C-alpha cells in the first residue's frame, strides 16, 4: 500500500476521532424523565406539526402593544407563567377577586374576576376594589392535561361522595358550571340542571382546555380571540388579536404534552413512601390512577395514567379559605391538584418550591402540614410519623 493511501486512511481516522470528540463536547439532552415538555407518544406527523406550531405560539410568542398586549395584563407570553411547561412563580401568580360565595361574582363590572396588575406605559393597572375578597392562584404545570381532559365524566363521578355516604371523612364533588358559549361537549358529558362538570383551574371552574386557553389569553395577556372577544380594559368586543387557528394550535399543544414520567420508582425508599401514601389515605383525593375514554386524538384514547388527582372539590379547611371562590365551589373547597411532576416543580420555579394554590408552602412537608378540612386526618397522621418515614413519603412525592 502506498504512503499516499496510508496518509489518507490516517486522515480519515483522525477526522472520525475528531467527530466523535466533537459530539462529546456538545451538551447532552437531559434524561426524558427530567423534562416536563415533549409530546405524548404515538402522534401522527400531522399532529406533530400542529404540536410544534402550538409549542412556538405557547413558548416563543411574546405579545407587545402592537400585537395586542394589554393594555392591562399579567404576563406577556404563555411561557412567562409556565417555564418549561412547569408550575409558575410568585412573579406570575394571578389574583382573582369578587366572588365570596357560590351565588355570583359581584365585581364583574369592576374588573373581576381577574386582576390585571400590570399595564403598558401610559396606562394605570387595575387595583383591587375595596371590599373585594381575593385569592392568588399559582400557575399550574401544563403536562398531561390532555389525559385529564379525556377522562369521562362518569369516571370522575365514581370518586364523588358529596354527602360522605361511606363515612370516611372524604366527600369530593364536582364543580357544576355553566358552559361558555363556545366549544363542544365531551362524548357522554353529564349534565345537571343545565350545568356540566368543570375540571381545570384551582376551583375546577373551567370546562376544557379551549376555555382555559381562550380565558388565559384574554385575562392574563389582554388578547382577544373569536372565543373571548371583549377587551379587558375597555369592555368592548374588538377584532381578534390572535387567530383562531393559532389558538387551536395552542390548545392542541396543551392537550398533547406528555404526562410526567416518574423517577426512581424502584427505589426502596420511594416504594416505602408510596405504601405510606396509601396507608395515610392521601390517595382518597390524590387518586393515583385514572383512565381516559374516547378522544379524537388516538394517542389519548383509553389510556391508563397516573396523575394523583380525582379532579373533584374538597373542603380543605379554614386555613386555606381565602374568602374567594368560583362556580359552585365553596370558598374553602379546592380541586385536588395532580401530584405528577411535583418533584420537577423546582426546575420551573427558580430552584424553590412554591406549593399550594398560591405558592404559600415552601416545601412538600409544609404543604402537607397546611392540609386541613377533609385532609386534616391524613396531614395529622403524616406529622405523627417518625422522621424517616416522613422522608420516605416525601421522596415518593418527589419521584412523581
Amino acid at each position, binding site marked *: 500500500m502506498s504512503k499516499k493511501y496510508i496518509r489518507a486512511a490516517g486522515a480519515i481516522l483522525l477526522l472520525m476521532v475528531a467527530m466523535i470528540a466533537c459530539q462529546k463536547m456538545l451538551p447532552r439532552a437531559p434524561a426524558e424523565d427530567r423534562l416536563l415538555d415533549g409530546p405524548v407518544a404515538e402522534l401522527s406527523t400531522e399532529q406533530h406539526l400542529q404540536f410544534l406550531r402550538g409549542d412556538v405560539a405557547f413558548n416563543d410568542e411574546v405579545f407587545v402593544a402592537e400585537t395586542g398586549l394589554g393594555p392591562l395584563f399579567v404576563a406577556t407570553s404563555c411561557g412567562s407563567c409556565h417555564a418549561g411547561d412547569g408550575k409558575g*412563580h410568585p412573579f406570575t401568580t394571578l389574583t382573582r377577586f369578587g366572588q365570596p360565595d357560590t351565588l355570583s361574582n359581584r365585581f364583574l363590572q369592576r374588573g373581576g374576576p381577574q386582576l390585571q396588575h400590570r399595564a403598558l*406605559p401610559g396606562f394605570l393597572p387595575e387595583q383591587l376594589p375595596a371590599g373585594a375578597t381575593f385569592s392568588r392562584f399559582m400557575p399550574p404545570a401544563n403536562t398531561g392535561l390532555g389525559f385529564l381532559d379525556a377522562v369521562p365524566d362518569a369516571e370522575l363521578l365514581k370518586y364523588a361522595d358529596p354527602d360522605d355516604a361511606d363515612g370516611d371523612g372524604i366527600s369530593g364533588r364536582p364543580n357544576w358550571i355553566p358552559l361558555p358559549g363556545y366549544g363542544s361537549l365531551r362524548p357522554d358529558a353529564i349534565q345537571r340542571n343545565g350545568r356540566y362538570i368543570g375540571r381545570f383551574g384551582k376551583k375546577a371552574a373551567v370546562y376544557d382546555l379551549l376555555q382555559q386557553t381562550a380565558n388565559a389569553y384574554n385575562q392574563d395577556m389582554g388578547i382577544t380571540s373569536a372565543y373571548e372577544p371583549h377587551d379587558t380594559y375597555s369592555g368592548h368586543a374588538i377584532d381578534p388579536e390572535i387567530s383562531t387557528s393559532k389558538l387551536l394550535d395552542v390548545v392542541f399543544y396543551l392537550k398533547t404534552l406528555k404526562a410526567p414520567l416518574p423517577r426512581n420508582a424502584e427505589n426502596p425508599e420511594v416504594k416505602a413512601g408510596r405504601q405510606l401514601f396509601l396507608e395515610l389515605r392521601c390517595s382518597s383525593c390524590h387518586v393515583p390512577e385514572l383512565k381516559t375514554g374516547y378522544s379524537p386524538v388516538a394517542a389519548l384514547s383509553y389510556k391508563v395514567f397516573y396523575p394523583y388527582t380525582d379532579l373533584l372539590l374538597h373542603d380543605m379547611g379554614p386555613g386555606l379559605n381565602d374568602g374567594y371562590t368560583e362556580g359552585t365551589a365553596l370558598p374553602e373547597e379546592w380541586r385536588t391538584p395532580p401530584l405528577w411532576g411535583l418533584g420537577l416543580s423546582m426546575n420551573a420555579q*427558580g430552584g424553590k418550591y412554591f406549593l399550594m394554590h398560591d405558592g404559600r408552602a415552601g416545601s412538600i412537608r409544609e404543604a402537607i402540614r397546611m392540609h386541613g378540612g377533609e385532609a386534616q386526618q391524613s396531614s395529622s397522621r403524616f406529622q405523627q410519623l417518625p422522621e424517616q418515614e416522613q422522608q420516605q413519603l416525601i421522596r415518593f412525592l418527589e419521584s412523581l
Partner: protein
Amino acid sequence: MNGFTHFIKTCDRLPGAGIHETFRMKRFFLLSMLLAIAGVAAAQRDTALFKRIVPDSGRLHMNMDAVYNRPFIQAGKLPATLGGYVEANSAYFSENGVSEGLSFQLPRLTLFVASTIRRRIKFLSEIELEEGGREINIEFASVDVELDPLLNLRGGIIMNPIGAFNQNHDGPKWEFISRPMAATTIIPATWSTVGFGVFGKYAQDNWVWAYEAYLSNGFDDKIINNNQNRTWMPAAKANAERFEESFNGAPLVTAKGAVRHRRFGEIGVSWMGGAYNKYREDGIDLDQKRRVDFLALDYNNRLAKWNTAITGEWVWAFIDVPPTYTQQYGRRQQGGFIDLVQPVIQQAMLGWNQASVNIALRGEYADYNVGRFTETGGNIYDQVTAIVPGISFRPSGQTVLRANYRYEWHRDLLGNPAKKIAGFQFGISTYF
C-alpha cells in the same frame, strides 16, 4: 419639470415616502459602490492605475481611529478610496442535546468609501449588507472637518463611541466568529444614528489622549416593548426613521475619553444617555421623560513580551422602566467580555510571507435583568455566560480563517437550571 423630478416629488408626498427615499438612496449608493469596486478590480490589471493604501502600523492607534485605520484601494485619479470586508461562516450547534444541524451564513458584507474632499475635510462611509442582503444599513457616513488636531467636527451618521466594539468591530480584526454578546445586545452594536459632535487627540511621547462628544438621535420605546421579552436595546435599531428624525426630540448624548500608552495599552471610559420614550406629542405631555443610560469601560493592549493581545469591555445599562410595567423588562443590565489572543506561529507559510497561527480565548457574560423580584425578594436572572476557545490562521493581517468552539449557559428570568448551548463555528473574514 421632467418626468423623473415629478416622480421624486410625488413620492415625497406619499405616506412613508421618507423611508422609501432612504431605501432607494441606499440601493443607489450601494450599486454605485459595487460598480466602483468592480472598476477598481478591473484596474488591478494595470498596476499603474491601482494603489492599495495600507494602515500605518507605526502610529499609536486608538479605537476611535478604527474608521480610518482600514485598508483602502484607490484607482487612478478616482477622488474616493474604496474598501470593505466580508464574512462567511458555518456553524453546528446543539441546545440541550438537540441540534438543528449544520448551517452556513453570510452575516455581513461591508463596503467602505472614503474621500478627502479638501485638505482636512474628509468623508467616510460604511455600508453593511447583513444576512445575505436581508438588511442594508448605512452604519457610518460622516464628514470630518479638522479645525485643529484637538478639535474636529463630525456630522452625519455616526457610530456612537460607547465602549470600544461599537467603533472597532470589523470582522477581520477578530479571532471570534460571534460578536461579543454584551457589546451587541446591551450596547446594540453596531449602534449608529444621525448626529453631530467633536473629537480630538493629543499625542506626546508614549501617550495619546483622546475625547469624543456627540449629540444624536436616540433610542425609542421598543427597547421595553419587543418580542424578546426582555429589555432589548437592539430593538431600537429596527426603527429606520431614527436616521430622519428623533423619536422624541430629546438628543442622545454620547461622550468618551480614552488614553493609550505605548506599553500599557488603551483604556476608555464612555457614557451614552437620553430619553427613550415619547413623553410629549403635539404639545401634550404623555409621560415623564424616561431615560436609558450606558456606562462602559474598555481596555486593549498587546503585551510586548509575549505578543499577547488583550481586549475587554464591560457595560452597565440603566433603564427607567415604568413601575407599573412588568419586571420581565429589566431596569438594569450589565455584561462584558475579555479576549486573549496569542500568536503561536509567525512565519512564512504556504507562500504567505506574514502568516500566523493564533490561539484565542473569550469569556463573556450578559445579565439582562439585574434586580430582585418584588414578590419574593429573590434574584432576577435572565443571564447568559459563554466561553469560546478558538484557533485562527492569518495569511496576512487582513484575512483570518477561524475556528471556534462556543459553550453557552442560559439562565431564564427565574434562575431555573441553565439551558446549555454549544457548538462549533468555522469562518473566514477578510478585507478586500
